[in-house]
């Protein structure tokens, strides 16, 4: 379980979070919605200890990450994997080297074993033909697939964190990425792999998540799709769009 307790974070006079509380089980599928620059990516970084709050605590399985040793923190972070917007691939490495990155850092696999593992993951994600290409030669959708492949290289995480997984992609590619995210989340026996996806694309969020959080300086909404579409929060209604709201109400 991941918990954020009473988080306050400000950059100078710009208060990003003030008294934010959030908790999630590893198997949950959560979409964090909100406008641009509201701190959605920062929330993901807080969960992994990549950003440090001014006050408050971040707990992974009940343990405060600020009190963990570097090795303990590394092991705690291995419960998660993150896919940033645009993939954050190492641009001096080709696709194969990107996927093999953590295998080379933290295992003593032979080159044959690494090659086998990379091809297995790449095949699974439909990027086997591209393993010798450089990141700059890949489309946005392919870059995200490679980033996902890299995050699965050393094993299955308990929870995936996606930062704007479909932003900047055409509708077809975005739909493919959503399908892939859903397939991967079904792929973690004995438990499903959970996910937290931050996005401002509501239509994609409903394809991959079943719990929705709306973020401003704090969490102003936390519920399922029925509760979201019936919300009385004017700002959230405006964000998800009246039209979408009506369509969803009919579907439900």
């Amino acid at each position, binding site marked *: 379980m991941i918990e954020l307790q009473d988080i306050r974070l400000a950059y*100078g006079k710009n208060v990003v979070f003030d008294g934010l509380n959030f908790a999630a089980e590893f198997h949950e599928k959560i979409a964090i919605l909100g406008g641009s620059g509201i701190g959605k990516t920062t929330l993901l*970084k807080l969960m*992994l200890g*990549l950003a440090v709050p001014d006050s408050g605590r971040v707990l992974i399985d009940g343990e405060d990450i600020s009190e963990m040793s*570097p090795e303990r923190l*590394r092991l705690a*972070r*291995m419960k*998660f*994997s*993150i896919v*940033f*917007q*645009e993939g*954050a*691939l*190492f*641009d001096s490495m080709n696709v194969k080297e990107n996927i093999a*990155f*953590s295998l080379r*850092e*933290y295992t003593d696999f032979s080159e044959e074993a690494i090659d086998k593992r990379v091809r297995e993951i790449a095949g699974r994600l439909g990027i086997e033909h591209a393993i010798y290409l450089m990141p700059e030669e890949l489309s946005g959708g392919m870059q995200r697939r490679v980033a996902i492949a*890299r995050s699965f290289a050393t094993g299955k995480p308990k929870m995936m964190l996606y*930062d704007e997984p479909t932003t900047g992609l055409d509708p077809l590619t975005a739909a493919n990425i959503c399908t892939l995210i859903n397939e991967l989340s079904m792929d973690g026996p004995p438990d499903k792999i959970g996910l937290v996806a931050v996005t401002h694309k509501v239509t994609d969020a409903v394809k991959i998540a079943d719990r929705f959080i709306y973020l401003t300086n704090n969490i102003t909404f936390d519920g399922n799709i029925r509760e979201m579409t019936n919300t009385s929060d004017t700002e959230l209604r405006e964000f998800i769009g009246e039209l979408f709201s009506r369509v969803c109400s009919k579907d439900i």
Partner: protein
Amino acid sequence: MDLKAQVASLQEFYLVCVSAITKAFKKPYYTKETIEQMDYAGVGSFFIVVFVSLFIGMALSLQLSAELSSLGLKMYTGRVVGLAIIKEIGPVAIAISFTGRVGAGIASELGSMKLGHQIDILRVHGVDPIKKLVIPRVISAIVMLPILTLIGDAVSIIGGYYIAAFVSHQSGSFYWSQIKDIMNFETVTTGMVKPFIFGYLLACISCYAGLSTKGGAIGLRRSTTRAVVFSTITIIVMDFLLTKVLLYAFGKEV
């Protein structure tokens, strides 16, 4: 920037400088990255250093030949050129050229990695960015800058010789005997200690500037500029302080 933020960034810079030394002796060692950085910083800067040094040596020799000629001391051009190049101008000019190429490169590369979340990915995978990114660059700078300085000093002195012998029509053999005279322990130590320290400082400043980048393309421009400006100022100020310390250490009166 308020005082609190300035103190915080000074503290972070201090941590980068200290970690670059303390973590260098702990596993894992990134030998491949270090060799790549040495190639980029050293081999890649070779022609710039040769070119800059050649013209510095020739300009200095030309100027000194003219000035010393009016005092009737033209034959000492070699001595003054040698001392000025080895002790002062060589280390400083080459360190500044190195900053312009390598320091700016480090800051923009690391800054781009920071903005592209690649540094976050390293940390998520349990890789310490100081060990993987900073230490190879610091080692590369403290190894390659003294070597480049040595090469640059030699090229400057050869450039000075060309002007002294073929333009100012001085005795070439006397020029070289003057150079040989000044090549003692003190001169060589003074000329070689400086590039080690300049290399360490400029690499730390540039790495810190890159790692603290924020704010998109403008932030990247700011951090690259900051790396070059702070490194240049630090090199010049540190040169003065080191000269003072080394003069004292060698018991020289001013």
